[in-house]
Structures are given as structure tokens and as C-alpha cells.
């Protein structure tokens, strides 16, 4: 396993005072809290920072860690010193605590901890006597807008802490086949009761799946509403026309009123993501000129120019 440099993780010197450690920890905890941070590795960093703090804030654990010596570098291959079973002190950890800590931590302080997704414990779930509810787990689910529209099934592989028959904590890979209902939107959560971490004489925790919609090449979603920019020709805009428009549910015909302009928005009611109140599709018009790359095309534009000699689209700008 890899040696972890807890001082480096918190960005403090090896002789840092308890106050300095606390300050550094608080600052990093705010920065990398998974509910706050947008950094892609926030979860991992938050766990590392918590682990470093767990050790360095406690004088006993810090002394034990310091006793490994200062010759180590982060990432060095680490083997627990021989005979560490004898004089070393074992600490008691709850399963959800142990699940947060690395193998390196466990090799020094006990508690067969392994990383297991980002486990979180409802604060009130701690300390209810012996019966302990399992930790809640949260996992992100990246799905396409098409899957959000139609609904789909996903197979998930999750690492879960679990007790073996001797009561030791182990990590087990579980494969779940989860149904995603039609009409989910960005940031929504699906709660799978009892599918989280195992309880100890109490209920299992819950598993929360948080929906993340992948960016779509043509649509943009806002809640249940879908936005689309629709290119149209100058004559379709001027004269009005019925044109095909793609929607998540398939192609529909859209009537463009005469005298339309770029950036005008048309609403297709109920053509957004489904739900009790389905979202709408908003079609934003964008007038696109045909290329003027041939003599015939250029003369057609010259005809237009002659005909609309008095038209000044910049009148409002005062020029």
C-alpha cells in the first residue's frame, strides 16, 4: 500500500501546532466538501483531508504516525513495521468511519477500512446505542437526455462495506440493476431504501443515485423544459412556413408565423421531459442565409438589396 503524507495533504509543516492543523483542515474541508466543490476529485480529496485530520488532530495518533519516521514520501510503497501488533494501540471505529479510511490508515490504527464510494452518515444516525443504522451512500448517475426522456435501466457496480461472518468489515462489489423512470431531471435523486451500507443490529443505509445529464449536441435542458435552436431560411421567416423540428419524442411539424425574426421563441407545449406536468420544448429561431458563393446566388441577393433599398436594420442604433 502507499504511504500517505498527512502533513502534505493538509499543507502544514511537520511541527505545525494544533491550531495550525485545525485552521488548515477547516479551510480544505470547505474547499473540497462534495456538496460545495465543483472539482472533479473533490470526494477523494475531502476523504484524504478528513483522514489526515483524524490522525493529526489527535496527539496519540499523531505520535504514532510520527513514529514511522520522516523519511517517507507520499506514494512510497509502505509495509507496516514488523512487530507492530505488539505495542501498537488499536482504535475502535464505527463501520461508517472505517469505510472512509484508507488501507494505510487501517494498517496503523486498525479498523479494516476500505474506500467505498462516498459514504455519508446522517448525523443523527450515530450513537443510538448498539443498534447502528448502516451508512447512506450516494452515487452519481450520468445519463443521456434520451434516456431521461424514455426512462431506462442501468447496471451499477458499487463498492460496499460489509461485515463477514466474523464481524470484520470487508469491501464487496455489488451489481445492481436499477430502473430510471422517464422524466428525471438534472440533480434529482433516486432513493433506494435499504441498498446502502450494512447496519449493525440496525437497518441498512439507503442508496441515493444523483442524476447528471450529459450535455446533448442539440438540446439543452432546464428542469423539464427543453431548448433548441432551430435554423430557418430568410424566406421561411418572412413568409411563414411549416418546418420539421426534432424533439425528444420524435420529429414534429412546427408552423413558423410570417414575419418571424431570429431569437424569437416558439413554445411546443408538453414536448419537454415527461412528468405529471410535462415540460415544454422552446424553439429559438435562427435565420440562416444560403451561401453567396456563385454568381447566380449573388445576383439573387442583389435583387433583394435593390428591392429593400430603404430597409435599415440598424435604425435603432442611430446609425
Amino acid at each position, binding site marked *: 500500500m502507499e504511504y500517505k503524507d498527512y502533513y502534505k495533504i493538509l499543507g502544514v509543516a511537520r511541527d505545525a501546532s494544533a491550531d495550525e492543523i485545525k485552521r488548515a483542515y*477547516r479551510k480544505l*474541508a*470547505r474547499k473540497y*466538501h462534495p*456538496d*460545495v466543490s465543483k472539482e472533479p476529485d473533490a470526494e477523494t480529496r475531502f476523504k484524504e483531508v478528513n483522514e489526515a485530520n483524524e490522525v493529526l488532530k489527535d496527539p496519540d495518533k499523531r505520535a504514532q504516525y510520527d513514529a514511522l519516521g520522516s523519511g517517507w514520501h507520499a506514494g512510497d510503497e509502505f509495509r507496516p513495521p514488523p512487530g507492530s501488533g505488539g505495542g501498537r494501540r488499536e482504535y475502535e471505529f464505527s463501520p461508517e468511519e472505517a469505510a472512509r479510511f484508507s488501507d494505510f490508515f487501517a494498517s496503523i490504527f486498525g479498523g479494516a477500512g476500505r474506500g467505498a464510494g462516498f459514504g*455519508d*452518515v*446522517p*448525523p*443523527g*444516525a450515530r450513537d443510538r446505542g448498539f443498534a447502528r*443504522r448502516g451508512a*447512506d451512500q450516494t452515487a452519481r448517475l450520468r445519463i443521456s437526455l434520451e434516456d431521461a426522456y424514455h426512462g431506462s*435501466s442501468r447496471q451499477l457496480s458499487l463498492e460496499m462495506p460489509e461485515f463477514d461472518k466474523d464481524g470484520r468489515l470487508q469491501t*464487496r*462489489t*455489488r*451489481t*445492481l*440493476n*436499477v*430502473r430510471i*423512470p422517464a422524466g*428525471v*431531471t*438534472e*440533480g*434529482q*435523486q*433516486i*432513493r*433506494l*431504501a435499504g*441498498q446502502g451500507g450494512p447496519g449493525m443490529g440496525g437497518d441498512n443505509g*439507503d*442508496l*441515493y*443515485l444523483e442524476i447528471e445529464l450529459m450535455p446533448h449536441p442539440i438540446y*439543452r435542458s*432546464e428542469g423539464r423544459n427543453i*431548448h433548441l*435552436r432551430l435554423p430557418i431560411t430568410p424566406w421561411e421567416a418572412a413568409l411563414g412556413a411549416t418546418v420539421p423540428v426534432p424533439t425528444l419524442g420524435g420529429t414534429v411539424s412546427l408552423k413558423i408565423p410570417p414575419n418571424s425574426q431570429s431569437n424569437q421563441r416558439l413554445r411546443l407545449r408538453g414536448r419537454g421531459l415527461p*412528468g*405529471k406536468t410535462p415540460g415544454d420544448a422552446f424553439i*429559438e429561431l435562427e435565420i440562416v442565409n444560403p451561401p453567396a458563393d456563385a454568381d447566380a446566388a449573388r445576383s439573387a441577393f442583389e435583387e433583394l438589396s435593390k428591392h429593400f433599398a430603404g430597409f435599415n436594420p440598424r435604425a435603432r442604433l442611430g446609425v
Partner: protein
Amino acid sequence: MAQHETGIEGVLLDEQTRVSITEMTRVCGVSVEQVRLMVGEGLLQPGGGAGPDNWSFSGVEVRRARRALRLQHDLELNLAGAALALELLEEVEQLRRRVRALEQQHGVICEVD
């Protein structure tokens, strides 16, 4: 050891889902009193009747409550601080979405002399 489980259906925590106060306390691992405090702070806005017994919350509020509790616990905030952090976070998320939308609408920049 891998284990397969098939066809698990969860509950979508959206605006339509209604959650009673008992379910809320169980899901968040908190007491009725703590839920009452969150309501008092304006963090949660229950529907239903006047007394806590008749309160019902939307699925979206389950996420809010859990998030507020996590922030409160992990960053050692008080409830008012967690409520403020949550409101600001939600505003930032909304602004980010707007920015992304506006960026998509912007055309390609063409340099001209």
C-alpha cells in the same frame, strides 16, 4: 465477491413525491425536533396541515434537508449557517446553468480588421 440483483426500483425524489414527517426523520436520521428547527429556519417548507403531524414535504426537500445536515455536520456549521450556505450554493448552481445556456447561444467569434 460479486452479487447480482436485478430490477431494483427506487423512489424518485421530485416535487410530486410527498414525504411525511416520520419518513423525513427516518430518511435523514434526525428527530422531529430537528425537522421542526429546519422548518423554523425556513430551510424546509412543509405542505399539509398546521401541526407537524400533518406536515408533508416534497422529494426535493429531502435532498435539501440531507444536504443541509451534511454541511452542518462536516463543516461544523450551525443551522443558520448551513441554511445560508445551501441557499448560496443553489444560487450558484442556477447561475452556472444560466451561464452555460448563454455560452451555448453565443455564436463563434470572428475577428475582423
